[in-house]
C-alpha cells in the first residue's frame, strides 16, 4: 500500500477492500512512528482527519465517490484551513487558527479528500531548504543529515517517506519543484492563474502558485483536476474552460506504441549545462534525455540567453512583493503581538522584530529598499523589464520545441546547515526554477536517477502556457518505461 497510486487507492476504497478510516489511521500511525525523525509535520489533528474520513466512507458507500474521495493528503502549512492551526512556518502565526478555508482546501474537501495534517516549511515560504522553519528543520528521509529542499520540504517528505499518498505545496521560485527533486518525488507548478491563491498566505503575489506533490505524473494530474479552476476571490485567477488534466496521459502523440513520444521536440538550453552544474546531476539528466529519445522524442538545441538573470531579477521582485504582503503582520488583528511595548509604533516594530525570523527580515529589508523612493526604477522596474526578456526567451524557444528540459537543481540535496553562512549561496540553488515563475509558465520536476551520496536527482520540465496536460503525458510515458519514481528511501518501510 505504501507505493499505491491515488488511482489504486481509489479502487481499493471503491471495492471496500479498504476504508478511508483505515487508510487515514494507517497514515497517522506512520506519521507518529516516522515523523519524530523527520519533522515534516507541524500539526496533526487525528479527530478532525478521521471525521473527514468517516464522511468520505459514507460518500463512497452511497456511490458518490470522486477520484480523491477518502484519500488523506498532507497540506503545506501555508494553506488556510478552517479550524486548523495555520502557522506558515513562523512564530508570527504560531497560534493562528484559521477562520476560513483556502479555495484549494475547499476544493479538496468538497472532493472528499482528507486533511492528514499541516506540513512544515521555510518561514513564509522564503527558503530552499526547509531550515528556516520556526518549528525546526525538516530532514530528508534519503539521508537525515541532509535537507529535503524548500520551501515545501514538509510536504515533499510526507510523500517521500510514504506518510501521505500525496500532498499540496506552493511554488514562488521553485518551492514545489526543488524539494520534489531533492526528495525523489514529483511536483508541479501550474501556469500562473490556474490555481487560486485565495487563502494561500501570500509571499510574492505575481509569482506564487499552489500545486500538487505526489509519487507519479498520473497522481499529479488527478490532484490538479481538483485544485485548478476559476475563483472570483483571487483577482489573478483565470477563467478558462475546465480541463481534464488526465485526458492525454495514455495517448501517444502518434500511433506507434513503441515510440509514444514520436514527434515531441525537447528543447535543451545550453545555458543550463554550464559551470556550477554537478556532474552527477548532469549525467542523470543526460540519461533521462536519452530515454526520452528512445521513446521517440527529438532533442533541439535552444537558447535562453537571459536565463542567468533569473536569480537576480527574482531576488528583487520576490522580496519587494513580500515586503508589501508581510506588512499586514503588525500585531493588531491576528498573529503575534509583542508582550511589551511603549506605543503603537513600538508595538509594530517589536512584534515584527520578534515574530519574524532572520531570513524573512532580510527579504523584507531588501524589498523595502528596492521599492523606496529613488530606487524603484533602478531595481524593481529594471527587474520587471528583465522579466519580460526572460519570458520572451521562452516564447522564442517554444517556436522550435514543445517542452524544455534540464536539471531542477545544480546539485543533489546538501547537508543541513551547510549553506547557512551566506544567503546568496542558498539563493543560487534556484537557478533552474525561478524563470518559470517569472514568466508564469507551467513547470514540473520528476525523479530521473541518483547522484552523489545516492541522493535523488530531479528532471525539470517547462512547458508553454497551459501545457500541463501535455507535460503530464510526457512524464507519464517516461514513468511507464522507467521506475525512478517508484524508489523509496530505506528506513521508511
Amino acid at each position, binding site marked *: 500500500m505504501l507505493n499505491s497510486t491515488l488511482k489504486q487507492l481509489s479502487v481499493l476504497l471503491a471495492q471496500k477492500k479498504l476504508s478511508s478510516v483505515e487508510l487515514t489511521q494507517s497514515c497517522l500511525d506512520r506519521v507518529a512512528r516516522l515523523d519524530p525523525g523527520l519533522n515534516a509535520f507541524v500539526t496533526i489533528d487525528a479527530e478532525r482527519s478521521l471525521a473527514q474520513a468517516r464522511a468520505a466512507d459514507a460518500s463512497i458507500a452511497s456511490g458518490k465517490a470522486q477520484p480523491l474521495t477518502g484519500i488523506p493528503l498532507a497540506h503545506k502549512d501555508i494553506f488556510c484551513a478552517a479550524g486548523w492551526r495555520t502557522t506558515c512556518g513562523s512564530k508570527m502565526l504560531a497560534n*493562528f487558527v484559521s477562520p476560513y478555508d483556502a479555495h484549494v482546501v475547499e476544493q479538496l474537501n468538497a472532493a472528499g479528500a482528507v486533511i492528514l495534517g499541516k506540513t512544515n516549511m521555510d518561514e513564509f515560504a522564503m527558503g530552499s531548504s526547509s531550515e528556516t522553519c520556526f518549528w525546526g528543520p525538516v530532514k530528508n528521509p534519503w539521508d537525515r543529515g541532509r535537507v529535503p529542499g524548500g520551501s515545501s520540504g514538509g510536504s515533499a517528505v510526507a510523500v517521500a517517506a510514504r506518510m501521505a499518498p500525496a500532498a499540496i505545496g506552493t511554488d514562488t521560485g521553485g518551492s514545489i519543484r526543488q524539494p520534489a527533486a531533492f526528495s525523489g518525488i514529483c511536483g508541479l507548478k501550474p501556469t500562473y492563474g490556474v490555481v487560486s491563491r485565495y487563502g494561500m498566505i501570500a509571499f510574492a503575489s505575481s509569482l506564487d502558485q499552489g500545486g500538487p506533490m505526489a509519487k507519479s505524473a498520473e497522481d499529479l494530474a488527478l490532484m490538479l483536476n481538483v485544485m485548478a479552476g476559476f475563483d472570483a476571490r483571487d*483577482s489573478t485567477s483565470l477563467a478558462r474552460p475546465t480541463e481534464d488534466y488526465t485526458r492525454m496521459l495514455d495517448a501517444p502523440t502518434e500511433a506507434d506504441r513503441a515510440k509514444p513520444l514520436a514527434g515531441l521536440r525537447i528543447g535543451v538550453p545550453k545555458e543550463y549545462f554550464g559551470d556550477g552544474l554537478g556532474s552527477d546531476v548532469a549525467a542523470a539528466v543526460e540519461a533521462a534525455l536519452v530515454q526520452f529519445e528512445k521513446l521517440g522524442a527529438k532533442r533541439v538545441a535552444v537558447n535562453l540567453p537571459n536565463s542567468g538573470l533569473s536569480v537576480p531579477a527574482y531576488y528583487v521582485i520576490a522580496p519587494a512583493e513580500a515586503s508589501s504582503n508581510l506588512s499586514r503582520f503588525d500585531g493588531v488583528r491576528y498573529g503575534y503581538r509583542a508582550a511589551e511595548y511603549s506605543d*503603537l509604533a513600538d508595538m509594530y516594530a517589536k512584534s*515584527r522584530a520578534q515574530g519574524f525570523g532572520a531570513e524573512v527580515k532580510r527579504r*523584507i529589508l531588501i524589498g523595502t529598499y528596492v521599492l523606496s523612493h529613488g530606487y524603484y526604477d533602478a531595481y524593481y522596474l*529594471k527587474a520587471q523589464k528583465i522579466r*519580460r*526578456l526572460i519570458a520572451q526567451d521562452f516564447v522564442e524557444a517554444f517556436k522550435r520545441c514543445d517542452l524544455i528540459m534540464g536539471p531542477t537543481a545544480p546539485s543533489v540535496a546538501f547537508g543541513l546547515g551547510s549553506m547557512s553562512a551566506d*544567503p546568496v549561496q542558498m539563493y543560487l540553488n534556484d537557478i533552474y526554477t525561478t524563470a518559470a515563475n517569472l514568466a508564469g509558465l507551467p513547470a514540473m520536476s520528476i525523479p530521473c536517477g541518483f547522484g552523489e551520496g545516492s541522493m535523488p536527482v530531479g528532471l525539470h520540465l517547462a512547458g508553454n*502556457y497551459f501545457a500541463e496536460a501535455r507535460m503530464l503525458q510526457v512524464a507519464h510515458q517516461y514513468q511507464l518505461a522507467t521506475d525512478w519514481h517508484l524508489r523509496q528511501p530505506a528506513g521508511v518501510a
Partner: protein
Amino acid sequence: MSLTLPEVKRVAWLARIEITDAEAAAAQGHLNGIFKLIEQMQSVDTEGVEPMAHGQDVVQRLREDRVTETDRHVIYQAIAPQVEDGLYLVPRVIE
C-alpha cells in the same frame, strides 16, 4: 550599491522592524552580498523593454457593485490579540 549602517537602520524603520546596532551590522553584510547579486541586472540593456507584471495579457477583472460579503467579524475577531466591543485595541495614538 552598498548600504551604510544608517541606511540599514532607515530601511528597518520604513519596514517597521526594530533592529539593534549589532543586528544592523550583521544585516548590512548579508544585504550587501545580496545587492552584489542583484547588481548583475545592470549588465543588460533594457532600453525600450516594457516591464512585465503578468505572464498573460489580461486586465484586472471587475465585478458588479453589489454587496456580497457577510458580517463575520465575530469569527475574525475571535483570534485577535485584544478586542473590545468589535474594536481592535492598540496603544493610544492620539493624546
